[in-house]
């Protein structure tokens, strides 16, 4: 059986997860937003033919991975003048303080740690599947994700301390 669920449910249920994945991969900004849009647009296109038993979230995360690659490649071409860029504001127009800190801390991680966190921790893909996407072994993905999370935790622990002390 092919998919009979309203697509809107996929956006409601998995929109946030896909945005977190895109942000972790591409940084908090218009690139992540573009990847999110391209992901859901491609998903909408394929939706009616999708098997009903598909793990929709994992499928969307894999689509997001491909779209993130496209966006990264597009960055190189972005230097060319573009005639009619659509007018829009960034959804990051006025991010919360904490949100901004977290995403810049993620962006500061080494690439492999960032990608492991994106696809495994945030996207929910198993270590082995994440390894297929970002290369290396499941074990190395596990280590990269753990190292990245450790760095993030340390950053927050340090932050919590400084926040509490008078300067």
């Amino acid at each position, binding site marked *: 059986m092919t*998919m*009979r*669920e*309203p*697509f*809107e449910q996929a*956006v409601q249920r998995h*929109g*946030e*997860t896909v*945005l*977190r994945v895109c*942000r*972790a991969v591409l940084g908090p900004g218009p690139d992540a*937003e573009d990847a*999110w*849009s391209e992901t*859901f*647009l491609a998903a*909408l*296109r394929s*939706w*009616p033919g999708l098997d009903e038993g598909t793990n929709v979230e994992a499928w969307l995360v894999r689509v997001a991975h491909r779209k993130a690659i496209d966006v990264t490649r597009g960055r190189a071409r972005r230097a060319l003048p573009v005639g009619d860029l659509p007018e*829009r*504001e960034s*959804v*990051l127009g*006025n*991010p*919360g303080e*904490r*949100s901004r800190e*977290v*995403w810049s801390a*993620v962006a500061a991680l080494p690439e492999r740690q960032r990608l492991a*966190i994106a696809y495994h*921790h*945030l996207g929910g893909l198993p270590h082995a599947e994440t390894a297929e996407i970002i290369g290396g072994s499941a074990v190395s993905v596990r280590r990269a994700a753990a190292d990245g*999370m*450790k760095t*993030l*935790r*340390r950053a*927050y*622990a340090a932050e*919590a301390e400084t926040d509490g002390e008078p300067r």
Partner: protein
Amino acid sequence: MTPMPETGAVPSAPTHESFPLEPGALETLHARLAVRAEEEGLLEVSYRTLDSPVGPLLLASTMQGLVRVAFEREGFDAVLETLAARISPRVLAAPQRLDDAAAELEEYFAGRRRAFDLPLDRSLSSGFRAEVQQHLPEIAYGRTLTYREVAELVGRPRAVRAVGTACATNPLPLVVPCHRVLRSDGSLGGYLGGLEAKSILLDLESGGVGAA
């Protein structure tokens, strides 16, 4: 092996709350997606909700026109699932696509509109039901007919029960005015939106309420 440092009060398992998104981020992206989907011809069923004197309404349209108006008691989720199964699962909330329909309904409830001028997609009905529903807009605002009179109007005077079914399964209530059909004894008969809704609409049309 690197020794695991003590992390104290910091949670050991990452949760999505540790990676917060700003409020409204998804809404902005969703609205943009609806625009792109429409540009690419992928917005096969768009919908929005609307508050009204007869409770929240769900309005859905295809590229052809308004395809469904639903009352809350029908269950919006169930209605959307039916649309996904019968028309296309490419269903997306896209309020701007239903601006015209929402505006006309608001005017109607405010007593400022007596007939609807909206493109309709009648593909959810077929056969005799569709035929009956096509004739219902001939019953003018503020007037009512009996099920029997409607049967006569469509040239099937004995099909009174079938007319009742056609009214009960009208996918476009309000816009296709099945609420203007009553029993021969003057009682309300049935209504998809409930009898209270039916009498609110009849009151409205008799000038009882809301002549704003």
